Structures are given as C-alpha cells and as structure tokens.
C-alpha cells in the first residue's frame, strides 16, 4: 500500500489517477484541488461561454470517476509546502499529508504585468479557470464592450466565446500579430483577417499604458472604451512548491521522460513542467492538453512502480475560431526549409530540415493532419516515405506498403 | 452502319447520389461523370448489359433495358439477323459469341417431370433419414474375383469418388481468370468433387488441389507435360465441346498474358489456337492409342475421360469410346457454354444433351457395355432438377460450368470473348480479375452445390429413393409433357398420365 498524493485537479491529475490505476487498485490516492470543481479541461471554458458545453458536459470524466478510482479529493485547499525529506505536504490549513509518491500537477497561473490604473478597473477578469469564466459570464451583458489584453490562444478563445454575448470586442497585444506563440506573420494575418471578418477588433503592436475608469489609453495614443476588461497576457508555470522544496526548476519544473523531478518520488506533469521537445531538440514548456494528460498518465504509472515514458513530446496546437481551424505542430529550427501552399482561405506550411518534417502550420486544411504530426513526432526520415504525395495531402498511401500493411492488417 | 444501341441505360437521377460506382466499375466505359453538370452520363453503345453497374449501384438508380428501337417487324429477318448481316458486311469476319446457345430451341429438361411417392410407398424425409449422393465414376469389371482365402478382391480400376453427382466442367485458365480457377479449385476441394482445368494447363499454384482436379488434354496440347498429367485425379481427352462441335479453340493473344502464357507454354501475346481435330486422332483406334498412352504415362493410376460434343451419331461414337479403354465418357450438349465460338457454329451445330444422353445410355445398355464406362453429361445443367433428370435418364454425374460461372457472379452478358468481363471471370485484366475474390467465389460455389445437394435429396426423398445409385437410369421416375412419340421414345420415358 502506497500513499499517493496529487497536487492539482486538472487533466494531468486525471491522467495520473488513470496511470496509477492501470498498475494497481489497492492504494489510496489523494487529490488536493484548489478549485471547487471536479476535473475539467481548462480550454473548455471558452466553449462554455460559446454554449458548446455546459456545467454538466464540461466535466472531463463521469461523476463516478473519483469513487470508481478510489480517489479522495480535498476541494478548496491548496498545498503550501512540500517537504521532500519527510515526504509530506502541508496544506494552507496547516494540516499535513504524508506521501510515498507525489505528483505535482499544479498547472500554470495567469501573468498580469503591472499597468497603471489597472487596480481601479472594476470589471476586470483573468480567463484561466471555470470560476473566472462564471464571474465573467455574470459581468457581461449584450451591450458590453469588452477589451481583451492579449491576442494569444487564451485571449482569442475568450473573444470567440464572448462573441455572441456582447456588443463589441477589442483585442490588443503588444505583439504585432495574433497567436504570436504559434503562428508566423502570414498565418497570423490570415487568422486575424478571419477574426476581423467575424467582428473582432484588434489593436496590435501596442499595449495599454494607463486605465482611467472604463477607458484604456494605449501606448500609441489611441484610447479604447470598454465595459469589461479581460487580462490574458500570458501564463506562468506554478513551480514554487518544487523550487522551494529544492527541486530543479528552470522556467518550468524540469522533468525527464518518466516525469520525475529532481526530488525523490516527486513527479510533475502538465503545464507546470519543462521538458524535451523532440522536434527542436530543446527543453521547453509545452503547456498543452495532450501532453498534460500523457505526462500525468506516465507519472502515475511510474509512481505505482510501473514504467512508462513520454519521450516523443512535441508542441502542437489545434485551435479554431469561427469555423476556421488552425493546426500547428513541432518547430521551425534554424535553417529549416519551408514548403508552402496557399490560397485565399488556406495555408499549408511544412518545415523540413535534415530529411525530417520538423513542424507545420496549417490553416483551413486540417483533414488528417495527424499523419503529419506522426511524422514530426516520430522524426520519420522523409526519404523513407513518398513526401511528394504527402505534401499534397496527408495519406497512409505515402508511408509505404510495409507501414500500411502493419496498420491495416494488424492490431495497433 | 450505325445502329441504335441494343441496350439503354436508364438512370433515375432522383435516386443517383453521385457515388460514381457505375463509372468506376464499368470496364466498357459506359458511364462517365460530368464535372460541369455534376451529373453522370452514359454512352450506351458500349453497354453489354452485364449488370455490374446495376448490381453495385447502392441506391438502385440504374437499370439497363433492351432498347425498343427496332427495325421494321419481320418474322423471318429478325433484328438480330439483319444486324449480323450488317456487321459482316462491314467487317467480312466470322461472328463470335460467348456462353451457351441463347436461341429458343427446345429444352427437354423443362418438358420432363419427376415422380413422387404417394400411398403405395413412402416418400423419405431427407432431414430425418440418410440420403446418399455419393457417386463413383469409372469402369466396373465384368465379374468379381476372389483372393486365395475366399475374400473378395476389392481392387478396382481407377475411380473418381464424388460426394454428389456434379462436377465443374472444363474452363481453361486463360478463358477464365486465375481467381475463377482458384474459386473452382477450392470449392471442388471443399465439396469433395472435381473441377476441370480445361485446355490451358494448370497454374503451379493449383497443383495442391490435384486430388480434386481433372486435367484436360485437348488438341492444342497447351500446358500438357508429365507433371501436369500426374497432378490431377483424372485425365480428360477433349475431343469436342458442345458449344462448338467440330472446331478447335481460339484464345486471343490479349488473354495469353503473364502466367496464362507460361501455364500454356506458349509465347506471351500469341493467339492460342487449338486445331479442330487432334492430329493424332483421325479415327477411333487412334483414340484408343491416346487413351492408353495417357494411362501408360500415369501408370494406370488415373481414369481417362473422353469428352465429346453431342452430335447426330453420338450413340455410336459413345459405343466406340466405351470400347476404347476410356473409363468415363463426357457428353457435352449443344447448349453448353464457351468463352468464344463462331456464332453460326454455336447456334446451329450439335444436338440437345437430353436426347444424346438418353441415346447413349440406351445404346451402351443394349450392347451390354454400360459398365465399361461412366457417363457424365453437360451442356446446360441449370439446376438440381436438371441433375436429377439427367441421372434418371442414365448419367452417372453432370458437368456444370455456366451455373458455376453464375455463382461466381457472371450475369450471362455473353461477352467473354471481349476479355473485359466486369465480374472478373472471363478476363485477364488484373483490375478486373481482382473483382472476383476467391474467398467469396468459392463460398458461393460451395453454397450453390450445397443447395443443389439439398434439392437433389428432397427430390430423391420424394421418389422414395435414398441413394443416388437407385436413381441412375431409373427412367420410370420421369414423364414427358408435350413431347412427340418420337421424342419420348428416344428419351425412353412415358408421357405424363401413362
């Protein structure tokens, strides 16, 4: 019997629970959830606003999930300290919990840069949690003018979510383009155009220098009137617990393929971690859902004495606005070659280096892109596939008869 | 001269979902999709009414109908006759046809009815009682002999053992596809019967079905060598074919490709022409020599079948064969199928199998030599009742080919000679051959024969007969309807009501 403790209650935690239970069913698992909700996937909050999901459907797992898996959830409390020597965690209530294996799945938190007069803005929100969302929902009316600071994934998804609920949305960002973390100028321009066509206004390449009441004064001199302010500038990994306990932390918590931290029997998974990107060959924070679950699962398996590695992580994103989807994956390393195919409504950019597909950006054409993703993830030598055909469209046909035979005639 | 096409493609556009399966599946390229109009169009002049498109259309949006555009009505000069004259006037060539004679000549099977037991003896229920259909084919000695200890000497001349009195008759590899042969071979093995290689040799892949294979030796001797002769369970000397008595065969060079040419041992792309006669058989005594040459070559292990077309003096011919050393006579009636034959010959030469069979069986009995040979009859055996009637007339077993082709998907469009069989049977085009999956083809053949066997048993049971031997030559079980005295006399049966 082991005592498993999981800090956090997001999908990494769910993955961790399922990972543990794929190995054993005896030991107790305790989850410490700061939020008062059972596990949900944070990206769903914009879909909540958009009414594509609701408070029932938003749950990541069934209502019986914790009971079925023998998990005790401590809601509304947070961990203030990990003592790696004594192997216990301390909660904000002062109580301590011993552990034999610990998973730090603390995720990330919004980062709000200091802005003059911000504290005086009454209706200001971050957009990370369900509670943020419920509060924002209360605040907006059909007449609201919304100003969103940050044209990244979170800001834009928030814009899409609010679109039908409010009168006007303006998104501003210091960066000169939207989705600057995943798209290049050309792709970003196409997405921006599409967003604008759907009524989202942009104010890019500048930031708010001062708020006066419901007026934002921009650095370039413009002023924007708003009723509701959403701050979506960025996020930061929650690394403090590990760092304070003496674990190695860079920008995120450093973990290996087994999701181990540098502390004994302490694992970390999800948005709080920094790990190896095979597409670029560098360590980085890849705060995205599939990786969070996979890391959580791997950490769970390893905590329970099994063995599971996540050694093919790559950054990737599937994001869409108003019906236009954008798929990106991998990276664009120095010296890579870009192969492009584009028209008015679609862009396909494939990045190739050293006989490998290192990454891609696709807008519009997202049919079967998983085949490209697999090439990036598996670092498949392009000389072994029919890349000319693949460039035209992703297809099993181009991966060779041997691969096809394995996939279509066997159990995968 | 241009004709209005024989068939019309009727497409119910309100049902067409543009899946384009018709376009993809027509080897004759009748259908095509017009991207501009987003509509499927057809060139009906190419249609042979094989029904592939009709069969595959998932919404039943298609039908093929006979065109009602006719030449002026003429009972003497039919449309067909006139069009054939036009075609010949244009090409100067012999007209070619495929499959069996389609003309409305008498089908005696349909004028013969089968008996059933009432009151004086009981019908037998095949679901409750054993009902035997096993048949041996081969020569039976005049007399038994005993070993020194008085026990029976149970050795017999080579025999074929069939679980039911039906075999798949000769269709050469070349005239039909690899997959068709694979289907037939597997089905024969599964059923415990035999299939026949035809005159094109035996593909190396099918040697493993040898114990269910009859290897044929025809006038062209294509693919005949020692291993081939020894590979099968019996050897058939093909003297003639019901669909084209008196002429040889012609496999067009377009079908003699790849493994076909290799199996036939002829150069790729060359026409395979088998001569009208066997040039070493100009008389019955020559046949005897060939029979014994083949027996000698295979150490008397295998029965030898002599296959002849049903022609006017078939009884005398059969009598000769029965005395030639042959073990089995196969008689092929004039309605039998072919992969290609001159139309005039197919439609005008030979006699019906029913009359030929009755005449041969009677003659051999009259001469007391019926036991010298088994009789296999073919040439349009279409159903279990045809089989039962044939056995009652005196056949030991039947050969079926057209029915087997139908089981494999053939729709009797009679275009085998074009080599573009849309059902993957009478073609060598790889994309078309692929359409016959032997896994399916063999199961359908097995199903068909299983069904026939059940029906044969039902019919036998009705007659109060529980073993097929007791049906053979049991002509009392048959009555004719609407037949002349002469026809009844030849068939050796009474008229219904007698």
């Amino acid at each position, binding site marked *: 019997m082991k005592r498993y403790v999981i800090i956090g209650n997001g999908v990494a935690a769910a993955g961790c629970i399922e990972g543990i239970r794929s190995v054993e069913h005896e030991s107790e698992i305790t989850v410490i959830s700061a939020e008062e909700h059972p596990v949900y996937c944070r990206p769903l909050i914009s879909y909540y606003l958009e009414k594509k*999901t609701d408070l029932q459907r938003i749950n990541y797992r069934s209502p019986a999930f914790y009971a079925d898996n023998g998990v005790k959830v401590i809601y509304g409390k947070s961990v203030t300290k990990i003592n790696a020597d004594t192997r216990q965690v301390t909660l904000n209530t002062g109580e301590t919990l011993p552990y034999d294996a610990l998973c730090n799945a603390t995720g990330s938190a919004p980062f709000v840069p200091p802005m003059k007069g911000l504290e005086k803005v009454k209706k200001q929100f971050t957009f990370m949690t369900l509670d943020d969302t419920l509060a924002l929902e209360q605040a907006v009316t059909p007449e609201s003018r919304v100003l969103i600071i940050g044209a990244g994934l979170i800001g834009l998804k928030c814009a899409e979510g609010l679109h039908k609920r409010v009168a006007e949305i303006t998104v501003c960002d210091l960066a000169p383009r939207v989705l600057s973390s995943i798209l290049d100028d050309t792709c970003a321009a196409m997405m921006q155009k599409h967003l604008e066509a759907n009524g989202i206004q942009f104010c890019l390449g500048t930031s708010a220098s001062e708020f006066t009441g419901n007026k934002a004064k921009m650095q370039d001199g413009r002023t924007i009137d708003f009723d509701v302010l959403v701050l979506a500038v960025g996020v930061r990994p929650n690394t403090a617990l590990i760092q304070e306990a003496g674990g190695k932390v860079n920008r995120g918590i450093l973990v290996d393929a087994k999701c181990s931290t540098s502390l004994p029997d302490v694992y970390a998974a999800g948005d709080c971690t920094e790990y190896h990107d095979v597409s670029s060959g560098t360590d980085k924070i890849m705060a995205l859902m599939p990786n969070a679950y996979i890391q959580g699962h791997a950490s769970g398996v390893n905590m329970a004495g099994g063995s599971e590695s996540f050694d093919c992580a790559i950054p990737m994103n599937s994001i869409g606005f108003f019906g236009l989807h954008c798929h990106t994956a991998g990276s664009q390393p120095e010296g890579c070659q870009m192969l492009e195919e584009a028209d008015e409504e679609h862009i396909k950019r494939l990045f190739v280096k050293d006989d490998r597909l290192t990454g891609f950006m696709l807008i519009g054409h997202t049919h*079967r892109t998983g085949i490209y993703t697999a090439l990036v993830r598996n670092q498949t030598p392009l000389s072994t596939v029919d890349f000319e055909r693949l460039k035209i469209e992703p*297809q*099993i046909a181009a991966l060779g008869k041997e691969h*096809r035979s394995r996939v*279509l005639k066997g159990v*995968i | 001269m241009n004709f209005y096409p024989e068939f019309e493609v009727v497409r119910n556009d309100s049902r067409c979902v543009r899946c384009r399966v018709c376009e993809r599946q027509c080897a004759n390229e009748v259908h095509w999709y017009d991207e501009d109009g987003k509509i499927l169009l057809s060139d009906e002049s190419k249609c042979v009414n094989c029904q592939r498109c009709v069969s595959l259309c998932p919404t039943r949006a298609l039908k093929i109908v006979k065109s009602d555009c006719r030449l002026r009505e003429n009972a003497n000069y039919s449309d067909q006759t006139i069009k054939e004259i036009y075609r010949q006037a244009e090409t100067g060539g012999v007209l070619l046809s495929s499959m069996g004679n389609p003309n409305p000549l008498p089908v005696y099977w349909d004028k013969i009815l089968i008996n059933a037991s009432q009151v004086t003896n009981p019908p037998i229920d095949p679901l409750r009682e054993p009902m035997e259909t096993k048949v041996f084919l081969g020569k039976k000695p005049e007399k038994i002999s005993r070993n020194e200890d008085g026990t029976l000497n149970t050795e017999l001349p080579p025999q074929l053992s069939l679980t039911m009195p039906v075999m798949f008759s000769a269709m050469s590899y070349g005239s039909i596809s690899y997959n068709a042969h694979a289907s037939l071979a597997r089905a024969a093995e599964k059923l415990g019967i035999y299939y026949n290689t035809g005159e094109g040799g035996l593909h190396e892949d099918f040697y493993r079905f040898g114990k269910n294979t009859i290897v044929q030796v025809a006038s062209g001797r294509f693919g005949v060598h020692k291993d081939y002769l020894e590979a099968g369970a019996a050897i058939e000397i093909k003297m003639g074919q019901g669909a084209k008595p008196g002429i040889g065969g012609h496999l067009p060079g377009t079908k003699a490709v790849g493994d076909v040419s290799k199996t036939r041992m002829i150069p790729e792309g060359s026409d395979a022409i088998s001569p009208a006669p066997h040039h070493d058989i100009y008389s019955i005594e020559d046949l005897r020599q060939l029979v014994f040459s083949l027996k000698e070559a295979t150490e008397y292990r295998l029965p030898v079948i002599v296959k002849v077309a049903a022609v006017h003096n078939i009884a005398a011919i059969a009598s000769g064969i029965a005395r030639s050393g042959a073990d089995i006579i196969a008689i092929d009636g004039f309605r039998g199928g072919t992969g290609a034959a001159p139309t005039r010959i197919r439609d005008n030469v030979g006699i019906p199998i029913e009359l030929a069979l009755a005449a041969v069986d009677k003659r051999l009995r009259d001469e007391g030599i019926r036991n010298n040979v088994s009789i296999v009859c073919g040439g349009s055996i279409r159903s279990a009742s045809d089989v039962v009637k044939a056995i009652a007339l005196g056949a030991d077993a039947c050969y079926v080919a057209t029915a087997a082709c139908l089981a494999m998907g053939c729709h009797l469009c009679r275009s085998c000679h074009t080599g573009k069989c849309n059902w993957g049977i009478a073609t060598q085009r790889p994309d078309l051959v692929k359409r016959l999956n032997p896994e399916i083809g063999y199961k359908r053949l097995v199903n068909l024969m299983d069904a026939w066997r059940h029906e044969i048993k039902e019919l036998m049971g009705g007659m109060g007969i529980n073993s097929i031997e007791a049906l053979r030559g049991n002509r009392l079980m048959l009555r004719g309807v609407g037949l002349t005295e002469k026809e009844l006399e030849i068939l050796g049966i009474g008229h219904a009501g007698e």
Partner: protein
Amino acid sequence: MKRIFVKEEWCLGCHLCEYNCAFANSGLTDMVKALKDKKIYPRVRVETDEDGITYAVSCRHCTNPLCVKSCIAGALSIQDGVIQIDHNKCVGCLTCVLVCPHGAVVEDEKGIAQKCELCMKNSCGAPACVAGCPNGAIVYEERE
C-alpha cells in the same frame, strides 16, 4: 475483440464503403434521402497508392490511442476495446484530428469530430462498410 481489417488485394476502389458508412451513420432509412445532393462525411476513406492499389482506411481502434488521451472534452473513450466518441461532449477542437497518426478521425459536417465506431451506435450493429463491400476487401474479425 473484433476489428476492421483491410484486404487491399481485393479492394476495387469502388468507394461504396464510404457511401455505406455515410448512410449507416445518417440515422435515415433511405440512402437517397440520406445522401442525395449532399457532401458525404464518411468515417472510412479509400486511398490509392502510387501503384493504383486502393484500400479503405478507418479507425484502427488502437490499444494505446493518442486521440483519447488528447481529447480536451473527455468525449473520446475506450469502451470494450472500441474507441467511441460522445458527440454530445465534443466541442469540435479537432485535437484528435491533429494527433491521429492514421488520419482516421475527421471533422463531420457539423464541425465536430467523428470516427468509425464499428457501427455499434447505429442501427447496423455491425460495420456497414464490411457488409456492403462487394468484394470482401474489408473484414470484421478477431486477430492477434
């Protein structure tokens, strides 16, 4: 468990599997009504290789499925070995499309994800592509 396997040597490239799939999952009882004048969104796709060989590709029901692990809505799950999608939960983020290495999860006409569920949830009860294949090129069977 039984899975769909492809015998490409018998695939005729007729594409009927795609139409049968689209029809089977239309919820309608008449194919004409279901498919007439509509773009079809089948869950099985016929591919053609460089030699002109065709074959149908549909979900392989992987034992370690990336799509299930990647689903942000928890809409994808494995039930008795069958990877199923809860269309009611799917929000259409298409992450599953981005991760499926076989290209077997695709967007449907409503913009959410769909995939082969072996016709377990429609009235067919067994894969319609298999039942409708005219040449036995798709089979539904148990394999190791």
